[in-house]
């Protein structure tokens, strides 16, 4: 692969160094599903992030809003209005912001915990036993029931501290993060156990590198690829979990749209206005599908055994 790339370019610069990430991107580009997924995700993110700035809702009085309810799709309201006369198109954008934000933040928390636990248990033999038992314990917990219980328990307490919206956000993000770090921890531990025995770690150690720097400078950069794949899949599962919680009525407060919440609200009007269920459901499914395809492509691209073949 390197040869053909070199001969196609100018023959003088045959020894042009290629970075690892360039190789990864070249391999990633060959995965059609991943590319489509990436485009779809980019469009969806643009829709929810830029959308609300471009798409301004008209300011209406209460009476006008009331008369405006349950409108069919039109040029002013591309997806119609809901039972309180709100623009459903705008609600989809705002809901998507929250859903995607939940996915990203929950993923960050879960990957942070997972990498820390995995790194510690892989690197320090003494911690391995207890930490892996902890991981097993978490894997044996019935997660969905516990998530529901956690939301029920701490919703009011956190709402008092952060306000109802931010409180629920913090709670849901932490709850999802705390219950989904186990696969990442296992993956990282496995990688670290193998890396620890490699020569470069031995070399660094014999130079007197302290453990902290050994972990951060030498081992951590080498576990980035599997962690990235796990992170992508975590975003997808976090979005699904959040919508499931909202769907069960234990998610965000009614006035605060997320895709899951919109779907839940739409259920009561399913017979007359089925599109109110379908749009948010479609948005969730598309996002998750896109993220999963990206994860698939990343897995192939980051695997040095497949790359370059």
């Amino acid at each position, binding site marked *: 692969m390197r040869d053909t790339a070199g001969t196609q370019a100018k023959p003088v610069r045959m020894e042009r160094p290629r970075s690892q990430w360039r190789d990864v991107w070249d391999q990633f580009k060959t995965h059609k*599903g991943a590319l489509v997924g990436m485009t779809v995700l980019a469009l969806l993110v643009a829709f929810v992030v830029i959308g609300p700035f471009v798409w301004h809702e008209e300011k209406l009085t209460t009476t006008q809003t009331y008369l405006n309810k349950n409108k069919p799709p039109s040029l002013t309201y591309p997806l119609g209005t809901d039972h309180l006369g709100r623009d459903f198109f705008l609600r989809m954008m705002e809901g998507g912001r929250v859903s995607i934000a939940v996915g990203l933040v929950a993923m960050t928390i879960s990957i942070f915990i997972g990498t820390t636990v995995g790194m510690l248990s892989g690197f320090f033999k003494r911690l391995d036993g207890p930490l892996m038992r902890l991981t*097993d*314990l978490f*894997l*044996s*917990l*019935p*997660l*969905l*029931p*516990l998530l*529901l*219980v*956690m939301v*029920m*328990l701490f919703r*009011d*307490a956190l709402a008092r501290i952060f306000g109802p919206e931010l409180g629920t956000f913090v709670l849901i993000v932490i709850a999802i993060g705390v219950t989904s770090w186990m696969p990442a921890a296992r993956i990282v531990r496995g990688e670290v156990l193998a890396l620890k025995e490699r020569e470069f770690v031995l070399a660094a150690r014999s130079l007197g590198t302290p453990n902290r720097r050994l972990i951060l400078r030498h081992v951590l950069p080498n576990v980035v690829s599997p962690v990235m794949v796990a992170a992508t899949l975590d975003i*997808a599962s976090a979005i*699904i979990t959040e*919508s*499931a919680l909202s*769907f*069960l*009525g*234990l998610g965000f407060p009614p006035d605060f749209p997320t895709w899951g919440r919109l*779907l839940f609200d739409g*259920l009561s009007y*399913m*017979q007359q206005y*089925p599109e109110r*269920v*379908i749009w948010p*459901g*479609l948005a*969730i*499914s598309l996002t*998750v*599908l896109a993220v*999963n*395809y990206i994860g*698939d492509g990343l897995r192939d691209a980051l695997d040095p055994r497949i790359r370059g073949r």
Partner: protein
Amino acid sequence: MLTYIIRRLLLAIPTLLLISLVIFFLVDLAPGSPASEIPLTVPAEVRAKILESMGVNDPVYVRYLLWLKQFVWVEPLNLFDHWFGTTYAEGQQRIISYQTRGPVFDIIGQRIPQTLTVIGTAYLVGVLIAIPIGIYSAYRQYSWFDQAGTFVAMVGFSVPTFFTGVLLIVIFAVKLQWFPSIYDTTLKVTDWASFMKQVKQMVMPVTVLALFNAATLSRYMRSSMLENLGQDYVRTARAKGMSERTVVLRHVLRNSLIPVVTVIALGIPGIFGGAIITEQVFKINGLGAALIGAIHANDLPTVQTLAFIFAVLIVTFNLIADALYGLLDPRIRYA
């Protein structure tokens, strides 16, 4: 092998104890009071007595130990009495729900059949769909069937069950009116007509769960088949002049099923969790619905008991999966 199973069983006890601790104390933190279910017209001193009799005022470790004793000793004893007509458990206090003031296990007994019929059928259907698809996808790798299978599987586990369920309701219950959207738990199957009714109301929830399970299972089946198809013994079998049918269905399939069987066993507790959502979509009055109802009503004993039952299921099936793996695959030796 036997020593391995015994050791795992012994190890499961502290795990379960720890899980029960986590569940009990987490749920016990709940802000709602058990008094909220008592009508306000009840005088204060009577209310205090009711709470006293419910044992709410005891310190938390007393309640935990009592609950644990009831869960592992009194309730199984009650089940034994119920089956064999004995009276060993007479006079022993059972786990009482705040909502119904009846034993929690009576509620569970009433709810289990619904959950098992729907989920059991769905899982069975899922497995029956997934295995042939997996076999054929692997046998004709990269064919259009395989590509389509990969795509459908990806969609299958990306689309959440609450959306597929709602979509099916919109199409088949609202627009076409083929199936009822709400599961009728009171329906008794007595004759052909009521049996057809039961089948009709099961079609949608079973489809939703079966598709979701089949999506992941068919992928496992495919990769396991692919791994085996490239092995030397397959070439040998072909060289001996065996028919493709024998090679694939007898030699390769048998070996490929080993990891898949353990995945199937591992997935069983997971579907109980996933069924919480499906039961909510189709209004099936099963265990998941009982859990959601109990959470909304602050019914702590029911929540604790149900959550712990889910945990017991997970630990049990993990053990079964590991034991099965050892039993089926002679290469695996547990020391």
